[in-house]
């Protein structure tokens, strides 16, 4: 046991600080990807609820494909194809012909954002549909403009209805960050595999990785629980 402790010690001798630094990267990556996912999800939900058939098809296609294929496949697509795509866009739009390379963090954030965006789309769509139609009609009858209706009636309620579902999407995104280790970002899993490689003690480090993930999921669960309490503070319960 003391050997395990010294392996996980802080500083140059142990790997404790490296593991914790990995956990911070995991947290940052998950946060950025989740935020991107919510942004994409809002657009996706708008598209799926749109009265324009092409927008609906696009939204439907996006969620069907992303939710039907493994996340790892999406990550490989962006890892191997991301640079080509960005360079093609740069050439097409700005006439820039140089070499562009996205770093592992950017690729990871875009890949996980794309994945979590598909799940967020469904959550937000459900939340929008949960707002009673009568309220929208009442707002129109009061003479609210589209923007005012969106800001005063839709956003506050959709945010509240979507919160539990988005909490699940967050957990999913947090756990999915482990896949980005394959692209080379030094988050929890990558730190663990580097440490196992140089000490030949994989069990210790993958177990520590599991504990770190548990801390992150448990901690963020609490945050979402509190957020739900706060969001529902004005709701009367039977």
């Amino acid at each position: 046991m003391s050997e395990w402790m010294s392996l996980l010690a802080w500083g140059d001798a142990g790997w404790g600080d490296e593991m914790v630094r990995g956990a911070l990267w995991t947290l940052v990556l998950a946060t950025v990807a989740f935020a991107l996912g919510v942004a994409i999800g809002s657009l996706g939900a708008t598209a799926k609820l749109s009265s324009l058939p092409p927008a609906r098809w696009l939204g439907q296609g996006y969620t069907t494909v992303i939710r039907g294929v493994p996340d790892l496949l999406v990550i490989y697509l962006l890892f191997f194809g991301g640079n080509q795509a960005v360079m093609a866009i740069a050439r097409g739009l700005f006439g820039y012909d140089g070499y562009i390379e996205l770093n592992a963090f950017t690729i990871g954030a875009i890949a996980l954002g794309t994945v979590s965006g598909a799940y967020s789309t469904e959550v937000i769509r459900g939340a929008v549909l949960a707002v009673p139609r009568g309220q929208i009609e009442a707002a129109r009858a009061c003479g609210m403009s589209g923007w005012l209706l969106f800001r005063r009636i839709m956003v506050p309620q959709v945010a509240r209805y979507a919160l539990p579902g988005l909490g699940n999407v967050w957990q999913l995104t947090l756990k999915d960050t482990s896949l980005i280790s394959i692209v080379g970002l030094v988050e929890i899993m990558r730190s663990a595999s580097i440490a196992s490689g140089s000490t030949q003690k994989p069990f210790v480090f993958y177990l520590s990785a599991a504990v770190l993930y548990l801390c992150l999921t448990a901690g963020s669960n609490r945050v979402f629980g509190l957020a739900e309490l706060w969001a529902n503070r004005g709701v009367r319960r039977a």
Partner: protein
Amino acid sequence: MRFELFGEYFPDLLSGIPMMLQLAGLSLFLGFFLAVLLAVLRTSGIRPLEWFVRGYVYVFRGTPLLVQIFLIYYGTGQFDLIKQSFLWPVLREAYWCAIIALTLNTGAYTSEIIRGGIEAVPWGQVEAAKACGMSAWLRFRRVVFPQAIRQALPGYGNEIILMIKSTSLASTITLLEVTGIARKIISQTYAPLELFVMAGAIYLTIVFTVTRIVDWIENRLSPELAGRRHVEDAEKDLASVH
């Protein structure tokens, strides 16, 4: 898009399907038994057992599957005790490590789905079964379990799809299923989009088929729904006559 790649590499990708289905099928099969056991323990009313199952589910749902796979595949090799034991021939193989990890993982998720089903069975039915003199086992077999399964089926359908997608992680410990093969070909050809389209089509086809099968089973297991449809059909027929 380089279409000539499709004819060349599609058969290679198809050859990964048996591995994918084996991994998903075997671990879903084993995981289902584990899940029923866990769900029964979880609803048993015996505190220490309930806590154990709670802890188990918490750990497996709170950590990424990749950690679980690596812990079993790489982690167990750290101990000489395991290396010298009868377990090593199994734990040495990536295939069995993947099966074990996927089984333990789906067991945790599925047990929660089944628990929901068990708890949805009205308590009055259990009391009635008791009053008829049924033993606990007979009660479980005839009253609780069949209804719990029917209740759990839609959730279990999602779990099957998740597991099919999860088999892709087995490629990280050298197993060549569809995603692993796709990755290998991408690094040879540098055609990520083409390979994504091909591999994605395979996954979507399988996911679609599974969804259809689960829907069909759900219909078969819900006679009251089927009955209602007959009534609706009959009403429509009547309406068209008048």
